[in-house]
């Protein structure tokens, strides 16, 4: 089947991820949704790489994975720190600063 469908799938995944970010309260989950969006991007890259028949996309995908990993490190650190200081991972609790 045509690789284009992967692109559509990716789009769907991206949307799901975005929706998750908007909907979920738990910081971890939100963060995972972000990762989902990144992976959707990966899928797109790979799919197009397949379509175009060049490797740039695939190479890029690997880079993204690495970056995602790094992001996880930083992100989890921050989230955990927040959790420890307020005993909740809800992003809505982190709303001291407003207006």
């Amino acid at each position, binding site marked *: 089947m045509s690789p284009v469908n992967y692109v559509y799938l990716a789009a769907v995944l991206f949307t799901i991820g*975005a929706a998750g*970010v*908007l*909907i979920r*309260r738990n910081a971890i989950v*939100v963060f995972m949704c972000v990762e989902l969006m990144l992976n959707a991007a990966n899928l797109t890259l790979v799919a197009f790489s397949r379509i175009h028949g060049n490797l740039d996309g695939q190479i890029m995908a690997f880079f993204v994975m690495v970056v995602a990993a790094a992001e996880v490190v930083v992100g989890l650190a921050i989230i955990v720190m927040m959790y420890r200081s307020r005993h909740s991972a809800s*992003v*809505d609790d*982190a*709303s*001291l*600063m*407003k*207006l």
Partner: protein
Amino acid sequence: MESLIGLLVGFPLLGAAVLLCGGAKLDRSGHWLGVLFSGASFVTGVVLFAGMLGRPTDERALHQHLFSWVPVESFQADVAFQLDQLAMTFVLLITGVGTLIHIYSVGYMEHDVGRRRFFGYLNLFLAAMLLLVLADNYLLLYVGWEGVGLASYLLIGFWQFKPSAAVAAKKAFLVNRVGDAGLAIAIFLMFTTFGTFTFAPVLENATDAGEGMLTAIGLMLLLAACGKSAQVPLQSWLGDAMEGPTPVSALIHAATMVTAGVYLITRSGAIFNGAPDAQTAVVVVGAVTLIFGAIVGCAKDDIKKALAGSTMSQIGYMVLAAGLGPIGYAFAIMHLVTHGFFKAGLFLGAGSVMHGMNDEVDMRKYGGLRKYMPVTFVTFGLGYLAIIGFPGLSGFFSKDQIIEAAFAKGGTQGLILGAVTLIGAAITAYYMTRVMLMTFFGEERWRGQENEPHPHESPKVMTVPMIVLAFGSVFAGGLFKAGESFVHWLEPVTQFEHGHSPFSAAVVTGMTVVALLIGVAGAWLQYGRRPVPSVAPRGSLLTRAARRDLLQDDFNHVALVKPGEYLTRGLVYADNKVVDGAVNGTAAAFGGLSGRTRRVQNGFVRSYAVSMFGGAAVLVAATLLMRAV
């Protein structure tokens, strides 16, 4: 010779500067200094006069160009003097009477702390008035015009601690300012029409301008004249002006300044000759004021106010005469001069009376003063006879001429004017007799009131000027009449043509005499035969109106003052609420907008994410849209 002209103005101006800036060390000698300067000016005047008589008629006018004042392109205003017969007449009147009144004031103001200041102001007035009559162009005349206004303001309000005086001064200046605006506009019109406002070129070419323009200019000049000469409708200030010291009333508000309007009209004769409608307006104003002032004069119990009313009315005569054109100019000036003598004399007399009566002005508290102050009585009496036009005295000649000229105007207009002037003459006789009787005859109503005055004759320094003026009021008229001397003297400037009266001169004179007899008789019946009540009776409606100056102030109050107050209050409010409010409103609006928008920043990450997502969606959509369209 020319170079002397400047001195006429220079002496009093110097005097004013010295006296006003001199400081307290001049307090003791200041007044004589003032007299000296005005006297010097008078002497200069006489010298110039002599010189002028020595020259043939068409070389009499002198001209002195001092310096270029405001040169801007075609607008060339010079400080230059023009001394022709008309100006000469005024110079002599102003400096002569002025000097006399200076001398008189030395006595009158003896005990006043501000005497130095007073003489400073008097000198300032002389300077301004001389500038007015000597100017060779309308702008310089305007300077003198407002200068005398200032002097009058300062002198009316001389006793500033009296609120009434301060208010009267302000009122006088304001009303005059209205007139001044008229003069200013007249000058604009001349400038835009002729490209100049110097007398000679303007007047020589007046007729080119066309009747419409001349009428406009004429009416504006009339407005100015009304303001300065207290003619209806701008007459309301003169009565209050009596708040000033009596010498001031004599000099400024009787003899000289108030007649400036007549001078202006006469000087601008060429313009009026070309604008019959304007002339008619002048005549009407004159006639109305003539009667108006006379009626007011009849009802006043305050001796100065009564005389003020009469001044108004006499100037009415002059304005009327001036409005008649070449047949009247000379007589207007002639009456102006004679009036200068006898009215000044009357005022000084009044002042002398007040001097002896603890500054009491209410004639109902006078009576029988003739034996206490004989000199005053005689001089005042002569002035009285002169003003009512008693045959042989100066007033008789000048007034008679005007009445004759009024008839000579011809047609019904002539008849009406003649009638008005006759009636005026009758009323004049009436109120002057009234003043005379209430003051010097009847029983002594001042006796037995608290702090009863001790009437006494005034010192020489005061009586001498009165005597001199009395001479003037007796003989001046005859002098001028003799061989039409005065008319011939002025003719080169003002033109003269004989009016053709429907009645012979004799008839007119007869009517005049009859009129004055009626007036005198009326007054005698009312005040001579039966005692004068020391409190004013309620009086008829007309009397009460006349006591309130025929409701002129009430009218102004309703028509101008009140609306003005409302307007300003309204504007002050509007300025705060509307003009300012608009701006503050805008600021407040932004504040509110800001307050509302910042609520979007609710502190929740997810809502931020929503806005980002939405933003992204819009961005994409917009981009696609851009391509679509």
